[in-house]
C-alpha cells in the first residue's frame, strides 16, 4: 500500500510539474522517487531518520535511505492510519508511545515497508527513535547503529561523534561491498552547504510582512524535506521556493496579517485545522524552530569534524536553553508577537520544556500557547477544543495589540 501510495504521488506530481514548475510538487515528486528507490530489486536499503542523521554520509554510498518515521507519518495523512496504529498496539506497543513510531511499526507489521540491510539513527531527538530502530532491526534481523550525540559540545564529544561516524562509514562499506568514495562525500557536503545558503535566503524572505510563505508547508518542509538533504534536489527545491516567494512579494496582494507566530516542534499529519484557524484569524507562521540554521558550513576537506559539529549543535541536543537562544532577535527580525508549542503526548524531550519556552517568551513580552494534539493519531483529535484554545489565544494577542480596526 505504501509503495502504491508513493507511485501515485510520483505520478500525480509529475503531471503537476508538466504543467509548470512549483516547489511543492517538485518536493513531493522527489520525495516519492526517493522512497521508491528503496523498493528496487537488489538495492541496498538503509533505514534512517533524515532530519537528525547526517545524510551526507549516506549520499556517499549506493544505498537508498529510507526514513521509516516520516514514511509512517505519511500514512498518517490517509485513512489507513488507525488500522495501522492498531496493528502495533495489538502486538503490545502501548498507546502512550509516540504515534510516529506506532505508525512505522504498524506499517512494518503490515509488510508495507522495504527490508533494510542496515539501520542507522541518532540518540537525539528522542529515546523513542532509537528504541523503534532497535525493534525494527530485531524484526528484520539486520544490524542497527546508534550515533550517540553527547549533551555537551566539547573536544571529547566532537572526537567521539567523529569516531562513530567513521565506524558507520566502515559498516556502510561492508554492507555495500564498496569502499567510500571520498569525492562523492565531498560532493554531498557541497550540496548540503549550497542548500544551507539558499535556506538562509529563504529565511530572509520570510521576514517580509506579510509573510510570502509559511504555516503548515514550512514546518512540514523543515522536517520532511530533510529526506532530500545533501542532494542537488534540495537546493533546487529551495531555489524554487525562493522564486515563488519573490514573485508573491513582487506581485503584492499577500493576505493581510494581524499576528505572526513562532512555531515550536512538529505538526499533525492527519487532516486537522489549526493552521486554517490561524489563517482565519489573520495569523501567519513565518518561522518555526526546525527551519532555523543552527550549524556552520561543513568543510569539504574535513567532513567528519564538520558533520559531528552539525549534530552537536542541534538545538535538540543538550539543555533546553539552546531552543530559546536568540529569541529576542527572532521577535524583532520576524515581527513575532505570539508563539505556539505543538505538544504531542509522547514527545517528552520537546514538550517537557514547555514551561521554560513559555518563560523565555514571557521575558520578551510574547504570549505562548501549548497546543496539546497528537502528531499522527487522529483518534484523540478534538477539533472544537483546538478551535477554542486557538481562538482564545488569538483574542489574547488581539487584546495585547489593541482593538481591531473597524472595517
Amino acid at each position: 500500500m505504501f509503495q502504491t501510495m508513493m507511485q501515485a504521488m510520483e505520478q500525480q506530481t509529475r503531471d503537476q510539474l508538466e504543467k509548470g514548475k512549483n516547489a511543492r510538487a517538485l518536493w513531493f515528486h522527489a520525495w516519492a522517487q526517493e522512497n521508491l528507490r528503496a523498493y528496487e530489486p537488489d538495492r541496498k536499503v538503509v533505514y534512517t531518520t533524515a532530519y537528525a542523521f547526517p545524510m551526507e554520509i549516506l549520499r556517499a554510498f549506493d544505498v537508498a535511505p529510507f526514513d521509516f518515521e516520516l514514511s509512517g507519518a505519511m500514512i498518517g495523512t490517509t485513512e489507513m492510519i488507525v488500522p495501522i496504529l492498531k496493528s502495533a498496539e495489538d502486538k503490545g506497543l502501548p498507546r502512550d508511545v509516540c504515534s510516529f513510531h506506532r505508525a512505522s511499526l504498524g506499517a512494518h507489521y503490515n509488510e508495507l515497508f522495504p527490508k533494510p540491510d542496515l539501520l542507522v539513527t541518532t540518540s537525539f531527538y528522542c529515546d523513542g527513535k532509537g528504541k523503534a530502530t532497535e525493534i525494527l532491526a530485531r524484526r528484520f534481523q539486520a544490524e542497527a547503529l546508534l550515533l550517540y550525540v553527547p549533551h555537551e559540545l566539547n573536544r571529547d564529544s566532537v572526537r567521539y561523534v567523529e569516531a562513530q561516524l567513521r565506524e558507520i562509514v566502515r559498516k556502510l562499506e561492508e554492507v555495500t561491498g564498496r569502499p567510500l568514495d571520498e569525492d562523492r562525500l565531498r560532493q554531498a557536503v557541497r550540496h548540503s552547504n549550497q542548500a544551507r545558503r539558499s535556506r538562509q535566503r529563504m529565511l530572509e524572505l520570510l521576514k517580509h510582512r506579510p509573510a510570502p510563505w509559511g504555516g503548515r508547508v514550512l514546518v512540514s518542509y523543515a522536517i520532511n524535506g530533510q529526506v532530500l538533504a545533501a542532494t542537488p534536489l534540495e537546493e533546487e527545491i529551495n531555489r524554487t521556493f525562493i522564486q515563488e516567494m519573490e514573485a508573491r512579494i513582487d506581485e503584492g496582494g499577500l493576505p493581510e496579517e494581524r499576528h505572526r507566530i513562532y512555531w515550536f516542534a512538529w505538526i499533525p499529519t492527519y487532516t486537522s485545522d489549526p493552521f486554517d484557524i490561524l489563517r482565519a484569524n489573520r495569523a501567519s507562521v513565518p518561522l518555526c524552530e526546525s527551519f532555523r540554521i543552527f550549524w556552520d558550513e561543513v568543510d569539504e576537506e574535513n567532513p567528519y569534524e564538520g558533520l559531528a559539529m552539525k549534530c552537536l549543535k542541534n538545538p535538540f541536543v543538550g539543555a533546553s536553553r539552546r531552543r530559546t537562544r536568540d529569541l529576542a532577535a527572532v521577535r524583532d527580525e520576524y515581527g513575532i508577537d505570539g508563539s505556539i508549542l505543538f505538544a504531542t503526548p509522547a514527545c517528552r524531550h520537546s514538550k517537557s520544556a514547555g514551561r521554560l519556552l513559555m518563560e523565555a517568551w514571557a521575558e520578551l513580552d510574547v504570549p505562548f500557547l501549548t497546543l496539546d494534539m497528537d502528531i499522527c493519531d487522529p483518534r484523540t483529535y478534538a477539533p472544537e477544543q483546538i478551535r477554542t484554545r486557538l481562538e482564545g489565544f488569538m483574542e489574547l494577542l488581539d487584546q495585547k495589540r489593541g482593538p481591531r480596526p473597524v472595517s
Partner: protein
Amino acid sequence: MKPALTATERALAYVCPYVPEEIILAAGFRPFRFLPDANPSDADAHIHPNTCGYLKSLLAAGLRAAMPGVDGIVFANCCDGMRRLHDIWEKYVPGIPPVFLDIPKRNDRLSVEYFASELKRLAGRIRSAHGLSREVQEAEIERSIRTCNRNREERMEIFPRWRRNDVRADAAGLYALGQGTSRAPETDFPEQADRILAGKTVPPVEENRKGVVLSGSILRRPDLLFLIEASGGRISALDSCLTARRFPGRVEEGSADPYLALAQRTLTQPPCPRMAAFEDRCENLLSLVRESGAGGLIYFPLKHCEPFRYDTLLLLERFRGEGIPVLVLEDEFQTPIPEQVRTRVQAFLETVGGHTPCFRP
C-alpha cells in the same frame, strides 16, 4: 526519605543507577539514591502533566523543599524526561544545585572512553557547584572504588542465596535491603542486612508454589510484592533499578585510570532499557527466569517511561516465543494497588501454576 548522616556529613542525591556513587563519595559527599514521595500532580505547573510520575514527584519534592539533608542532586541523561527535569530544576528549585551527567547509550570502547572523560567532568561540576576548595584526587576515587566494590559484592551475594531459599526472608525484606542500602554505601552491609532480615518468620516456600520474576523500573512501595505473596505466589527474582540490577560488576581496582575503570563497569552493568542493548537485557531476564525456576515474568514499566514501554513489545514477543507467560502491569507511581491489579495478578499466578492461597501473619 532522608539520608542517615553524621553531624559532619553532606549528602548528594542521585536519580539513576548509571550515576557512579564512587565519584560522589570521592568528592566528600554521601551518595543518596533519592526516592520521592508520590506527589506527581504537584509538579504539573512546571512540567507537562503527561510525564512519568517519578520525574514529577522528584520535581515536586524539590519545589516543596522536601529533601531534608540533601545538599545537591546529580541528574543523568537516562531518558528524555530526566534531561528536561534537570533544565527545569536548574531554573525553579533553589538551594539544591543540580549537576548533570551524560551517559552514552552504547557500551563499546569509544563510548567507555568518552564516558570516562565525562566522569572527570562530573567531578569538576560537583566541585564548582559546591565550592569545593580542591579537585577530586585519583587516590580518593580509588578508595571509593574499593568501598563500593565491597558493598556491591556483599549485596550481590545475598540475592542468589535468596533465590535458592538460603535466606529466610520475604520479598519485602529484600526490597527493603535494596532500597535501604542505596542510601549508605559505606555502611557495614552484613550488619544492616541482619537488621533488615531479622525476625522474618516467613515459612519455607511450598514445593508447589511457582515463582515469578518481577522486572521493571522503580518499585516505589513493596505493595506489589505483598500482593504476589498474599496471592500464593513467590518472588523468584527482583530486577529493578533499586535492587538486583544495581549490584553486579566490579570496578577494576588499582587501575592506571580509575575513571576509565569506573566507566567500564558502569556501562557494562546489566543494562536497563535506556541502553541500546535489548538482546543483553532480554538474555539477562531469561536467565533470571530459568535459573530461578520461575514460571513467568511480571513486567511493571512506569507509565510514560519511554525506554521500558518500547521494550514491552519485544519482551512479549521473545518470552511468548519461549513459552514463558508475561503479565504487563502499568505502574502509575502514585496510587495504591487497585483491585483490578489484584485480579490480574491472581489470574496470572493461576496460569503459571501452583496457586496456593496463604496469608501473611
